[in-house]
């Protein structure tokens, strides 16, 4: 089913949780609502489910207005953050619940529940109580329970939030495969960008009740529309610089910025991702080269395959994080005090003040 939301607003008292949010989800899509806490992503999900109603705006499902339709009639499957399994019921009864309240014949219920327990790889655990399951198993029961009633759409609120790191990655990959198998339109909420990028076809980045940007994971990551998106999606170095004549300058290094062709210089912020900076040994040439910046190493922190190097550009009191492959860090013999040259492979410029969007 396809879903279309137009100018949805919602306030709780004086707090504006959603401010004219529009969104469309195409049939069979897997969309991530990504944002920090308080960004309105969970409220939006609950509005889609019919658990909350918008103060303003319109929701259409395959062209029909469902804005005032109650959750009970919406036919969406909802997986709660803490799963909200019925504690006093067995796994089997949890999954069967939606069928039982619909008075589905007994034999059909048994067949459907067993099929679903196989699908989520919990066959044989139907007799257990939720308290006797691991976190990952509970999550799959919640999923099977939501799928039992053949919903038109699946909504997941922080589906991996309460799981251990390892289980989280496994379940994420499994859920992606499951989605490809059953092809159900799905929307999930997360604050973890890695999770959003790995799982979703489309990422909607939210902040302060508004949509900052939407697009494929690649689009959002490579071409962040706002400084917030840039900041939120992974580590970043932020510097104050200036722009003029289609160029921004960072420590004298020019960066193309055709969006500002004016001659009048203006303040700008330059964003550099740690992995988009190149580190070389300072051979002395850097001092005369306008494309790289001489700096000295402050700290070297190794975390597995990546080594994070904190540097200070010469003649500056700012600090800069650079990610290099651990192998390369070894070759450069990086240690505090060592002189290096930093070359930005890529930089992004945002004008401060009223949020600038492309």
């Amino acid at each position: 089913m396809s879903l279309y939301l137009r100018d949805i607003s919602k306030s709780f008292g004086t707090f504006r949780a959603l401010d004219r949010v529009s969104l469309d989800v195409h049939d069979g899509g897997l969309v991530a609502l990504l944002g920090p806490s308080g960004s309105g992503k969970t409220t939006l999900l609950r509005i889609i489910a019919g658990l909350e109603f918008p103060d303003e705006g319109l929701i259409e499902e395959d062209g029909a207005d469902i804005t005032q339709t109650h959750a009970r009639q919406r036919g969406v499957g909802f997986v709660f953050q803490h799963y909200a399994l019925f504690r006093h019921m067995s796994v089997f009864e949890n999954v069967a619940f939606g069928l039982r309240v619909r008075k589905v014949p007994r034999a059909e219920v048994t067949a459907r529940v067993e099929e679903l327990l196989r699908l989520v790889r919990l066959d044989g655990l139907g007799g257990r109580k939720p308290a006797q399951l691991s976190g990952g198993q509970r999550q799959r029961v919640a999923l099977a329970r939501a799928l039992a009633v053949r919903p038109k759409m699946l909504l997941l609120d922080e589906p991996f939030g309460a799981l251990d790191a390892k289980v989280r990655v496994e379940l994420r990959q499994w859920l992606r495969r499951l989605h490809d198998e059953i092809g159900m339109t799905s929307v999930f909420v997360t604050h973890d960008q890695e999770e959003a990028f790995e799982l979703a076809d489309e990422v909607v980045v939210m902040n302060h009740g508004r949509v900052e940007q939407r697009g494929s994971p690649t689009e959002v990551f490579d071409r962040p529309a706002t400084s917030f998106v840039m900041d939120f999606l992974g580590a970043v170095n932020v510097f104050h610089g200036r722009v003029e004549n289609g160029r921004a300058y960072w420590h004298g290094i020019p960066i193309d910025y055709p969006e500002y062709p004016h001659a009048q210089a203006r303040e700008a912020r330059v964003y550099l991702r740690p992995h988009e900076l190149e580190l070389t040994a300072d051979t002395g040439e850097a001092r005369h080269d306008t494309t790289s910046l001489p700096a000295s190493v402050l700290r070297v922190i190794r975390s597995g395959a990546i080594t994070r190097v904190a540097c200070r550009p010469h003649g500056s009191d700012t600090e800069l994080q650079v990610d290099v492959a651990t192998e390369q860090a070894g070759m450069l013999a990086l240690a505090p005090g060592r002189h290096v040259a930093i070359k930005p492979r890529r930089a992004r410029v945002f004008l401060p003040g009223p949020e600038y969007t492309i």
Partner: protein
Amino acid sequence: MSMASTSPRRAAVRRTSALDGLLVAAAIGVVALFIVVPLVYVFHAALADGVRGWWAALVRDPDTRHAIWLSLTVAPVAVAINVVFGIAAAWLVARFRFPGRSLLVSLFDVPFSVSPVVAGLALVLIFGRQGLLGPTLAWLDWKVIFAWPGLVIATTFVTLPLVVRELIPVMEATGPDEELAAVTLGASGWQVFTRVTLPNIRWALLHGIVLANARALGEFGAVYVVSGHIAGATDTMPLRVEKLFQEYRTPASMALASVLAGLALVSLVAKFVIERQIAAEHRDLEAVRTTGDAA
């Protein structure tokens, strides 16, 4: 390992001082003097003329028979009203945020802080013949004060906080998510209540019922005022016990008192069993909330 873990405890036991012993003795002494001795004495006095005498004292006197019957009907009705009110009020308080919510919660406690006699008098002033609703009730030909409905109202009033107080914390701890999950799965309001809410609060509800029932059976003050103390008509068990005692019919009084005490002991056992169940359910809730990955 086991040596290391047990030795400090042994040391602690060995270090028990004279003061500790004194406190333990004092606690046991107080419990014995104020709880065990009176209770045992009630049964001892009740059975002074043997089991036959005890039985005769209970069933021979029609007024005593009526008092037993009255108590055993008034209490369940009051408890039933409590259950309906308690569930509705706890649901309101635990699931909704509205202005005056904490004031409402405080008002639930009024029956605990007001003397039952005062409550009884207030009821007389409202429902009595000269009272606020007196003319209306007279016109409807409903007798409330000095009659059965007055007993129910007074008993309900004094027991009102018991069920709702038990339910609010449980419903708040459980949270609304299970109920919302049931709604998204297509359950109607009634189905959500009977299949999800009620099973989750069942032990707390039963606990409240046991407490309310024990209190309802034992209530004296408020009921004393509204009943008019009419033997064979509005005397409940506690009122009858007092009346028999005043009439120097101590064995009969004690026989009836022993029935009340026996019912209290049954309540106590029920309460103990239910509290164990609540603790088990609480462990389940905690387990479901934690991340702990067994598999």
